[in-house]
C-alpha cells in the first residue's frame, strides 16, 4: 500500500537519492490526501503497523478529517492496548483486534482492524491466537500527544452542546499554548454565547502561559473580570512566578484578579445558599402544609403523617412502573402481576402528571380510613391521638416493608425535572426550581379551597366553633372527615414530590415528621400563612448555617436549639390565634 522506493540501481546514484529525499518530504502530504478518502479504521490500521514514528504521527494527524466517533473509539482502543499486530502467512503485519471470549487454550478469534472482518488463514478458517503470540501495538508519549490533539480537535467541534462545552473547559485547564490557535479558530465560528464565554475563558487561561509578560497580565485581568473560578489555581502560579521574576505590575494584576474572583465566588455562594434555602423551605412547606391543616386547624396530632407522605411516594413509584415495565410483586404470598405500558421518552415522562393526582387520592383515602377508624374517637383527647396514630404509623411502616421490601426503591425523574440551568456559575437544578413552583401552587390551592369554596367555609366554621356550627346544621362529622382527607391528600402530594428529589423507602416519612411538626408549631397553629413563613425561615436558616459552619448536622442541631429559644419569645408561634379560652 505504501509507495516504496525501488531498489537502488548503481547507475542512477545521486538522482535517485535526490528523488528519494523529495519523496520523503512529500510523503506526509501525499499520504494525507490518500488518507482523506480512507475510513478511520483503515488509517489507524495502517498507522499501527507503521514502524517509523514520524510517519505514524503524520498518519494519526490526518485522522481529524475522518468520522469523529469512529476516530475517538479506535484511538481509545489503541491507547488502552486493545490493538495487536499479527504476522500473516505472507509475512506481512496486520493490525488486529481480539474478538469474543478466549477459548480453552486462551486463544482469541482475530479480526482485522482495517476491514473489521475476521482474519482467515489459507484454509479459510478464522485465525486464532493467544495474546502472547501477538505483538501489542504500543504507543509512545509523542504519539499519544498527537492522538490527544486529534481527539481535542474533534471534541471542540462536537455537535453535542455539553460535550463541546466540556471540551472547551478541559482545553482551558490544560493551558497548552499550542492549542491557542485551535481555540481561536473555534471562537471565530462558534455561535452559542455560553460556549463563546467559555472559549474566551479558555483562551485567557491558555494565555497565562504566554512568553510575553504583557499578554499574561492582560489575560490575568481578563480572567479577574470574568470571575473565572477555574483559573484561580493558574493565577496563583502566575503570581508566584511573577514574584520571583520581580514583575511588580503583574503581581498587582494577579492580586486584583484574585480579589475579583473571590468576590465573585462569595456572590455565587450567597445566591446559591439563598436558592437552596428557598428550595429546602419549599420542601418543608410542601411536607408541612398537610400537617398545618390536620394539626393546625383540626388539632389532631397525626404521627402517621409521615406515612401518608410515603403512601404518596409509593403511589408515584407504582404509577412509574405501570408506565414502564409493569408491576410484579408478591406480598403475603399473593402474586400481583400487572403488565406495564412499556412507554419511553416523552410519553413515559407524563407518568408524573398522572402520579400527582393519584398520590393525592391514595393518601386521602388512607387518611379517610384513619379518621374513621381511629381519630374520630379521640378528638377530645389530643395526647391519646398522638399515641394511637403513632401505633398506626408503625403498622403502616411495617406493611410497606413487607410489600415493597425494606430497601429503597428507585423513582426516576422525568426528563423535564432532571438537568439544571447554570447562570453565572450558579447552578439551579430543575427539580429545585420545580419544588418552589410546586409549593407556590399548593399554597394557592390550599388558600383557594379554604377561602373560596363552600367546603372551606364549613371547615373554618367547624374549626372556629364546633358547637355553634353544629347548631346551624353543619354536619361536623362529615366536615372533619373531609378536612382530614384533604390534609392527608396534601401529604400524598408531598410524597410524590419527595420521590423526585430523594430515595423512596419505608422510613422516608420519619425523616420529615419532626421537621414538619416544628414548622407548624413555629408558624403558629391554625395559621397557614404562619406555616409558609416559618417553613421558608427554617429552610433559609438551615442552609445558611450549613454554609457558615460547613457542617449539615451541626446546622440542624442549632436550628432545633433556635426553635426552642424562639418559642420562649413567642410561645404560640409567629401568628398566634387569639382566643379567650384559657386552655
Amino acid at each position, binding site marked *: 500500500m505504501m509507495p516504496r522506493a525501488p531498489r537502488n540501481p548503481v547507475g542512477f546514484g545521486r538522482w535517485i537519492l535526490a528523488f528519494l529525499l523529495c519523496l520523503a518530504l512529500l510523503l506526509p502530504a501525499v499520504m494525507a490526501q490518500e488518507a482523506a478518502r480512507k475510513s478511520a479504521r483503515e488509517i489507524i490500521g495502517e498507522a499501527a503497523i507503521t514502524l517509523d514514528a514520524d510517519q505514524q504521527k503524520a498518519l494519526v494527524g490526518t485522522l481529524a478529517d475522518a468520522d469523529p466517533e469512529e476516530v475517538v473509539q479506535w484511538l481509545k482502543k489503541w491507547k488502552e492496548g486493545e490493538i495487536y499486530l499479527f504476522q500473516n502467512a505472507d509475512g506481512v503485519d496486520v493490525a488486529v483486534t481480539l474478538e469474543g471470549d478466549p477459548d480453552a487454550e486462551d486463544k482469541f478469534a482475530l479480526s482485522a482492524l482495517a476491514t473489521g472482518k475476521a482474519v482467515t488463514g489459507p484454509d479459510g478458517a478464522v485465525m486464532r491466537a493467544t495474546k502472547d503470540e501477538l505483538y501489542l501495538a504500543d504507543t509512545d508519549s509523542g504519539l499519544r500527544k498527537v492522538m490527544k490533539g486529534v481527539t481535542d480537535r474533534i471534541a471542540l467541534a462536537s455537535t453535542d452542546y455539553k460535550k463541546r462545552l466540556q471540551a472547551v473547559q478541559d482545553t482551558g485547564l490544560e493551558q497548552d499554548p499550542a492549542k491557542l490557535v485551535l481555540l481561536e479558530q473555534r471562537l471565530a465560528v462558534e455561535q452559542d454565547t455560553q460556549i463563546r464565554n467559555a472559549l474566551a475563558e479558555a483562551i485567557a487561561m491558555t494565555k497565562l502561559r504566554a512568553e510575553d509578560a504583557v499578554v499574561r497580565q492582560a489575560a490575568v485581568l481578563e480572567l479577574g473580570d470574568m470571575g473565572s473560578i477555574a483559573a484561580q489555581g493558574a493565577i496563583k502560579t502566575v503570581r508566584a512566578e511573577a514574584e520571583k521574576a520581580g514583575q511588580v505590575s503583574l503581581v498587582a494584576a494577579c492580586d486584583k484578579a484574585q480579589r475579583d474572583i473571590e468576590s465573585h465566588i462569595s456572590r455565587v455562594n450567597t445566591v446559591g445558599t439563598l436558592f437552596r434555602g428557598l428550595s429546602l423551605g419549599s420542601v418543608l412547606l410542601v411536607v408541612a402544609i398537610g400537617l398545618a391543616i390536620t394539626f393546625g386547624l383540626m388539632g389532631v396530632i397525626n404521627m402517621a403523617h409521615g406515612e401518608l407522605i410515603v403512601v404518596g411516594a409509593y403511589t408515584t413509584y407504582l404509577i412509574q412502573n405501570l408506565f414502564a415495565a409493569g408491576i410484579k410483586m408478591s406480598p403475603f404470598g399473593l402474586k400481583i402481576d400487572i403488565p406495564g405500558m412499556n412507554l419511553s421518552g416523552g410519553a413515559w415522562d407524563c407518568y408524573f402528571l398522572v402520579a400527582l393526582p393519584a398520590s393525592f387520592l391514595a393518601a386521602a383515602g388512607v387518611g379517610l380510613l384513619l379518621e374513621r377508624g381511629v381519630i374520630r374517637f379521640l378528638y377530645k383527647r389530643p395526647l391519646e391521638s398522638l399515641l394511637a396514630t403513632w401505633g398506626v404509623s408503625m403498622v403502616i411502616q411495617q406493611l410497606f416493608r413487607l410489600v415493597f421490601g425494606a430497601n429503597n426503591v428507585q423513582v426516576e425523574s422525568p426528563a423535564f425535572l432532571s438537568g439544571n440551568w447554570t447562570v453565572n456559575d450558579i447552578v439551579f437544578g430543575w427539580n429545585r426550581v420545580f419544588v418552589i413552583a410546586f409549593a407556590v401552587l399548593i399554597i394557592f390551592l390550599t388558600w383557594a379551597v379554604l377561602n373560596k369554596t363552600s367546603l372551606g367555609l364549613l371547615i373554618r366554621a367547624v374549626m372556629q366553633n364546633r358547637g355553634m356550627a353544629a347548631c346551624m346544621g353543619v354536619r361536623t362529622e362529615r366536615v372533619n372527615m373531609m378536612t382530614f382527607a384533604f390534609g392527608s391528600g396534601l401529604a400524598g402530594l408531598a410524597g410524590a414530590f419527595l420521590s423526585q428529589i430523594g430515595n423512596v423507602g419505608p422510613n422516608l416519612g420519619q425523616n420529615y415528621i419532626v421537621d414538619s411538626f416544628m414548622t407548624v408549631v413555629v408558624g403558629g397553629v391554625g395559621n397557614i400563612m404562619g406555616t409558609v413563613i416559618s417553613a421558608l425561615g427554617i429552610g433559609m436558616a438551615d442552609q445558611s448555617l450549613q454554609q457558615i459552619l460547613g457542617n449539615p448536622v451541626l446546622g440542624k442541631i442549632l436550628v432545633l436549639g433556635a426553635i*426552642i429559644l424562639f418559642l420562649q419569645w413567642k410561645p404560640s408561634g409567629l401568628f398566634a390565634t387569639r382566643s379567650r379560652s384559657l386552655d
Partner: protein
Amino acid sequence: MNTPLAGKAPTVLLAAVALFLVVVMPSLNAAGVVSDFTLNTWGKYVCYAILAIAVDLLWGYTGLLSLGQALFFSLGGYMMGMHLMLMIGKLGAYKSDLPDFMVFLGLKELPDFWQPFYSFPFAALMVLTVPAVLAVIFGYLAFRSRIKGVYFSILTQALTYGAALMFFRNDLMMGGNNGFTDFRTVLGADLRSPEIKRALYLASAISLTAVFLFCKWLTTSRFGLIQRAIRDSENRVLFSGYSAANFKLFVFVISAVIAGIGGALYVPQVGIINPSEMMTEKSLEAVVWVAVGGRGTLIGPILGAIGVNYLKSWATTEYPDLWLIILGATFVIVVLFLPKGLVGVPAQIKAIIDRRKALRKDRADDLAEITPSPEAE
C-alpha cells in the same frame, strides 16, 4: 382524684411482685433453674420498668407526655458507659489506654472531660447529674413559657432528635454511630461472669423497688396531690396561688434522674449503648409500656414494661416480620378501648357488669310499672 386512674392495687400483689423480682428470680438462677441468659433478659426488663415509672410520673401523674425520656435514660447509660470504657484499659482491640474508637479517630490522649470518669463514684454522680441538669435547663425554658399539652410532646421530641444527631457525630468524642461497647470489668470484677450478672440484676431489682417506694411516697404526699391537680386542671392550680411551673419542673427533673438510673443499670447488662437508644421511637415505646400497663398507677408501668418486652422477645423470634404490626395494633387498641391499661381492666369489666345489672333492674322496674298488678283492681 385518687381513685379513677390510680386504682389501689392490693398491697399483697405489690409485695408478691417485689418478692418475685428481688428474691425468687436470683435464687432460682443461683440454683440453676433459671438460666443466666434469662436472668440477664429480666435484668433488662427491670431497667425498662424503671424507665416506665419515670414516664408515668410525668404522664400519668402530671399530664406531661414527654417523648424525651429515652434521652435521659441513654444519658445515664452513656455516663456509666464512659466509666466502663475506661475500665477496658489495654484489653481493647488496639491495646491502648484510650478507648478503641478514640484510637480509631487518631486521638493521642484522653479528652479532658473524660479524665474524671476513671473514678466510679464520679461516674455514678454524673449518672444523676447530667440528666438532671439537662432537665432543669429544658424544663425551665419549656415551663416558663407555659408550653404544655401536645406542644410539650413535640418539643421534647425535637430535643431528643437534636441530641441523637449530636451523639451520632464522631467529634463529640462519645463513640459516634457505634457508641460504647465491649465492656470488660466493673469495680474490678469481670462483667461476663454469672455472679456479676446476678449482682447487676439484683442491683436493678432493688433499684426498681426503691424507685417504686419513693414514687409511692411522693405521689401520696401533698406534693402528689398538687401534681395530679395540675394534670386535671392547671389553671385552677395557678389561680389557687401555686406556681405550677415549679412543680412541673421538679417532677420533670425527678423523672429524668430516675430514667438516668435505669439507663446506668441497663448499659452494663446489655453491654452496648449507642445513639439509636435515644431516638424518639424508644421514648414512644416506653410510653406504650405505660399505656398498656395502666398509667396513673405505679404498678402498671412495671407490669407493662415487663409484659410488652416479654411479648417482644417472643414475637421477634417467632414472627419477626409482624412484631411492629403487633406492637402498633396493641397500642391503637389499648388507646381506644383500654384507656386505663391492663390494671384498669377489672374495673372496666366491673363497670360493664354494673351497667348491665342497672339496665336489667331498670327494665324490670319498667315492666313492673307497665304491667299493672291484677290485685290493684
